[in-house]
């Protein structure tokens, strides 16, 4: 297939996944910000939201005050922000339109329908409740797009490139949350008595839609080191780094087999997965959570470039 087509497919998925991630971060932050200070509301959660989606610097160029309304406007609706939900859906739709014949009718309708629907939302006059409904809608768009890809695409290189976009973006998103909030996730040995951070931990889980999953997996109350374990190493958890890499390795292998050629991407992805498989959360804490996540983000970006060099240009 054309490299440009593969590139477009990859980025359509990445942008849709990113839109959903931003929606989840906004949703969880809104919830956290309504808590009384005694329950851990510390007042900087909107700045944290900006940091988590990597939009803090761009935000400061447009706004002086960090508050709910401004951050929501900037992250959800701003056309100046290339990573706002609006921009993500518009760019995804533009990419999809350019490769209209490489995606199925169902996928096109999901993304084109979202694009048309998006025009109806007017950020200025939105109440909290309306914003909430809007964020739910964004999640449903991502579900519809993802589901239509899963259910209607041929299992060929188009499908694999589109899946790679999802999982590279997902791994990046989960790692960003960890990068911003690593200081909240302490090893068992450093456990302090306070439960002040409880709502911070549940916010993290909400950001990856894993609050219920946590209880099913660990059958325990929230423990920060288990939250870290769930997001990094647990392969049952679809947004964990390990699970994302399991998928990345698989789809890169499918490509390598179909094309009869392995390359840098295949080797790099396997070595990242091996590292995630051969470690425990205690060892991660021993070497330092922050350093571990920093290294992961660098490696994930490296893999993104390797995929681009090998297939997309």
């Amino acid at each position, binding site marked *: 297939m*054309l490299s*440009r087509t593969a590139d477009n497919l990859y980025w359509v998925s990445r942008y849709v996944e990113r839109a959903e991630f931003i929606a989840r971060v906004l949703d969880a932050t809104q919830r956290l910000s309504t808590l009384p200070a005694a329950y851990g509301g510390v007042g900087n959660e909107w700045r944290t939201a900006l940091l988590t989606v990597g939009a803090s610097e761009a935000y400061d160029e447009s706004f002086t005050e960090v508050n709910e309304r401004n951050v929501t406007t900037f992250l959800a609706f701003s056309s100046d922000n290339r990573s706002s939900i609006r921009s993500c859906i518009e760019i995804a739709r533009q990419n999809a339109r350019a490769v209209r*014949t490489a995606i199925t009718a169902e996928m096109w309708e999901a993304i084109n329908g979202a694009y048309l629907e998006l025009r109806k939302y007017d950020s200025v006059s939105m109440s909290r409740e309306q914003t909430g409904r809007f964020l739910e809608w964004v999640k449903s768009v991502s579900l519809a797009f993802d589901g239509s890809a899963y259910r209607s695409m041929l299992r060929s290189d188009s499908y694999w490139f589109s899946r790679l976009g999802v999982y590279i973006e997902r791994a990046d998103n989960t790692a960003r949350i960890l990068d911003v909030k690593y200081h909240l996730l302490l090893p068992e040995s450093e456990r302090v008595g306070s439960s002040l951070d409880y709502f911070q931990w549940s916010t993290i889980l909400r950001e990856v839609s894993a609050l219920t999953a946590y209880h099913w997996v660990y059958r325990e109350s929230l423990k920060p080191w288990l939250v870290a374990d769930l997001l990094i190493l647990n392969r049952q958890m679809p947004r964990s780094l390990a699970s994302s890499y399991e998928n990345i390795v698989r789809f890169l292998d499918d*490509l390598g087999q179909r094309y009869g*050629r392995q390359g840098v991407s295949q080797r790099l992805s396997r070595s990242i997965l091996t590292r995630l498989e051969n470690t425990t959360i205690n060892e991660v804490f021993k070497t330092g959570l922050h350093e571990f996540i920093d290294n992961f983000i660098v490696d994930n970006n490296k893999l993104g470039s390797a995929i681009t060099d090998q297939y997309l240009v």
Partner: protein
Amino acid sequence: MASAFDEMNGTGGSVREAYEGLKRWLDTVPADHIALRRSQAELFFRRIGITFAVYGDAEATERLIPFDIIPRVITKPEWQKLEKGLVQRVTALNAFLADVYGPRECLKAGVIPEDLVYRNPGFRPEMAGRKVPHDIYVHIAGIDIVRVDQDDFYVLEDNARTPSGVSYMLENREVMMRLFPELFADHRVAPVENYPDSLLATLRSVAPNSASRDPVCVLLTPGQFNSAFYEHSFLADKLGIELVEGSDLFVRDDIVYMRTTQGPKRVDVIYRRIDDDFLDPLAFRPDSILGVPGLMSAYQSGNVTLANAVGTGVADDKAVYTYMPEIIRFFTGEEPILKNVPTWRCREKEALSYVMDHLPELVVKEVSGSGGYGMLVGPHASRQQIEEFRRKLKQAPDGFIAQPTLALSTCPTFVASGVAPRHVDLRPFVLSGSDKVRIVPGGLTRVALKEGSLVVNSSQGGGTKDTWVLDA
């Protein structure tokens, strides 16, 4: 202007035989059934995203072309005559181009004035003395035809560069079959769905001799902001070939490759929907970012086929059009089966003075204009517009031709007030391969939705209809 020939009612009151079934249906079908079907048709078109862009219209970058659900009917004998005429005309067009860029016999014989060829903006000196694969220049032609009475069809214009609209021909039929299956049960309508197969067979037949037995064909588009992008992606999909942009292709050692996820892949035939000017920044406009550097050199070396060939614009010029009857006689030795609209060439002194005296009755067209832009429709023009054209004609008579205002035939069409006659034209698509000429029966019928209007172009408020060629 004489009253127009109506394709359903003729000139008198009695319904023509071909339309009897349709007339019965229109008279008996409940109005709300029709209203429902019309809204379903609109929904269908919007959902699948058949849109076009109107240049200079910032508000609506993607719009639907209005679709009218009453089909236009052509009888089998009428079509057979049209088909013969089209084959003859396109064969002559190809022979003319091969001659203009080759031995130039027709110029030596004085069939057409030399300056009309050499000073024509569509003439490409780069092509002179070069052979194109299989001597075919116009692989895909769209010939615009109008009807004026029971017997007479005229050719209004030859589109020999990158004619568009065929996706509407195909989608219109698809929608009609879905919405009105009962009509198709009552009429034997010749199918058009094999057009993509015919096009692919045509493209493969003209691959260079150096190509493998399984030549690689691609469709080259200017990209998604082009007004006809929908059609480009639609056709690529139906043909099962890659839809490429200039940046997807590159040239090495005069061979064209496309960039794929498995490395470079050689390309043999390019169905290009980009104008000559933008094909190759090294050969033509250096500021073009749509094209492929080196493409022209690969083409001249015979390593790739461009469909249509470079330089076909010289044949669809409105001034050259006026010489088509002579061109057909010269190259085929036959009388033209399809007539030209009588035309005054304003470059000729007597013609010019006639045109000047009769501006309010005539249609005046710019020789190099297209899409209904830059023309004067005398009977509908204001005095000011007429005076403006008078000035233009005085300044540069060579740039214009004039034609009588034809009483274009009308077809029954849904409008706000019900069913009313509206003017139509017809664009059949003619495919020329190295093996044969292929035409699917029918073509695209365009209809001027405004009462009395003669301008059918989609950019100027025209719509489309399904076109039925009856097979019995």
